[in-house]
């Protein structure tokens, strides 16, 4: 069983839901990334989504765009990100790490070299924002041979036939994007989400994470009531933006802890 499946199995037996924070690797500095990851785990994160910075983050709003720009400015590459995961694994062998990013840095490295490096670094899942299922078969197969899960997005506009297709390819969990728009936009529509989840569950036999528009303990708690995992990104990245490299790990930890507490209450 993969680390991601084990994590969900354990949470299920405890009657709890997964909290999945997203941060961009290399933001605000390369040195800060591993301490931030460790702080996320201490504060109650179950899985970490680590953003691979890209020069043209087409599906992201201004907050994550800026974090990508900061990370690129200090030279963070996909190879560096894999290095952060290796370092993190030296002290944490149980928390799953999912890389989230865009296709081109992976294509530049090559599927084979990437999956090889990701497996030896200890990466558990990969989510490529601009690889819909139709274009991702080769990478998905390459990842599968290394035991790495392929995480896919579903959206409010995904038709039933596509949901079925994602159900066939995906492993680990699927990520339901709860609103139309880019990351960090507007607020979540709970009734829309709860209306869609039964149809997704009918076709996807995996845990379902919900993200986009989750900004505080209250919305996280509401989502935890209907989904298997809560993904929170832009709000954390805002916190990183407002912190200094010295206090960033502590600040992020405090914010995640407050969300965890609200979810478990």
């Amino acid at each position, binding site marked *: 069983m993969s680390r991601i499946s084990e994590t969900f199995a354990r949470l299920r037996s405890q009657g709890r839901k997964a909290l999945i924070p997203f941060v961009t690797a290399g933001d605000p500095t390369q040195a800060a990334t591993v301490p931030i990851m460790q702080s996320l785990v201490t504060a109650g994160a179950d899985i970490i989504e680590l953003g691979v910075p*890209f*020069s043209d983050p087409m*599906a992201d709003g201004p907050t994550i765009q800026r974090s990508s720009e900061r990370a690129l400015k200090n030279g963070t590459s996909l190879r560096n990100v894999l290095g952060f995961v290796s370092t993190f694994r030296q002290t944490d062998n149980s928390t799953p790490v999912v890389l989230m990013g865009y296709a081109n840095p992976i294509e530049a490295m090559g599927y084979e070299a990437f999956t090889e490096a990701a497996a030896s670094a200890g990466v558990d899942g990969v989510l490529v924002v601009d690889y819909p299922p139709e274009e991702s078969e080769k990478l998905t197969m390459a990842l599968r041979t290394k035991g790495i899960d392929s995480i896919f*997005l579903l959206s409010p*506009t*995904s038709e039933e036939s596509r949901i079925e297709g994602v159900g066939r390819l995906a492993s680990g969990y699927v990520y339901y994007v709860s609103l*139309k728009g880019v990351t960090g936009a507007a607020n979540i529509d709970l009734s829309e989400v709860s209306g869609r989840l039964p149809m997704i569950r009918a076709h996807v036999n995996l845990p379902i994470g919900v993200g986009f528009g989750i900004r505080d303990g209250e919305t996280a708690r509401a989502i935890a009531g209907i989904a298997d995992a809560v993904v929170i990104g832009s709000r954390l990245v805002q916190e990183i933006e407002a912190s200094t490299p010295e206090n960033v790990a502590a600040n992020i930890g405090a914010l995640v802890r407050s969300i965890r507490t609200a979810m478990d209450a």
Partner: protein
Amino acid sequence: MQMYDLPDRNGHFGPYGGVFVAETLIHALDELRTQYEKLRSDPAFIEEFEYELKHYVGRPSPVYHAKRLSQKCGGAQIWLKREDLNHTGAHKINNTMGQALVARHMGKKRIIAETGAGQHGVASATVAARYGMECVVYMGSEDVIRQSPNVYRMKLLGASVVPVESGSKTLKDALNEAMRDWVTNVEGTFYIIGTVAGPHPYPMMVRDFNSVVGRELLTQMPDVLGRQPDAILACVGGGSNAMGAFYPYIPHKEVRLIGVEAGGFGIATGKHAATLCAGKPGVLHGNRTYLMQDDNGQIIETHSISAGLDYPGVGPEHAWLKDTGRAEYVSVTDDEALEAFHAMCRLEGIIPALESSHAVAHAMKIARDMPKDKVLLVNLSGRGDKDMNTVAKHSGIEL
């Protein structure tokens, strides 16, 4: 003649093209593809499009023998396809007119567009005004400065122009921002992409609408010359004017197809936008194609004196034509393009766009070494009024 029927069902030209977007856009692209597949073979739609091209755009555009320019070069004869004479001054309106009609058929009331030089923005604002649709144009803040006359033209036409401050503040960033708008307002909004790039069906659709250029040439050249030209030259940024001219000629193997990219300060300096000449394949803006990128797969900033060519990607069909050898791709520098620009002004009384000046420059370069009975057809994709500030500044003149 050999059959050429790309792209395939999923928008692939060999390994290039495709649909590389986040799940949130898939439904909108499916809807567009379904509608467009229907419309492209619907006689009523084609008739409507052709009527607008004739009466609103002013087609067909003439072909013209640039005799004095040819004489100066002393070799092959240079002919021009006068897309600069279209309404709004460039080939761009062929595509925006087509897409506006598709938008109307789909019941969309709001148009968004990205623009580099501003020609596509102006052409989008024009058709939006023509059909009473709201229009928002995204433009890199660098380009807003470089192309200020076009910004004012868009505003006169009732469009709002949104300066984009992210990334390199040029065309690629305007495209990112337009995509973000589309994903947010996907229901009532139609995104008019201005070049033969982006996710399927855009590369095919934009090519189809611009291929009126090549179709006209196929009959015009035999009429005036008694035969087809020996080569067709066109500048390539994203590559829409080139694709429009090349596409109908793909089966005519005797006609060389030459795409001219922006060599900026020279390929060796790294400051250029010659994607096919010096880039390598990757994924950006919804399609797989050649890209200007570093070893880590990050897109790098490009440079060209012409804003319309200043783009780190290129249409996927050009990538395919390059790999198969059906088309050749070369580059000319800023200085060579400027030289051609001035030659056209003085010798032919035509002020060409700096983009098109790249194609003229390469024609002048190769004409010299060719016999006088050879014919080079340059797609003069746009006029240069918009470039007055850039050219004057380059000559040390403040307007």
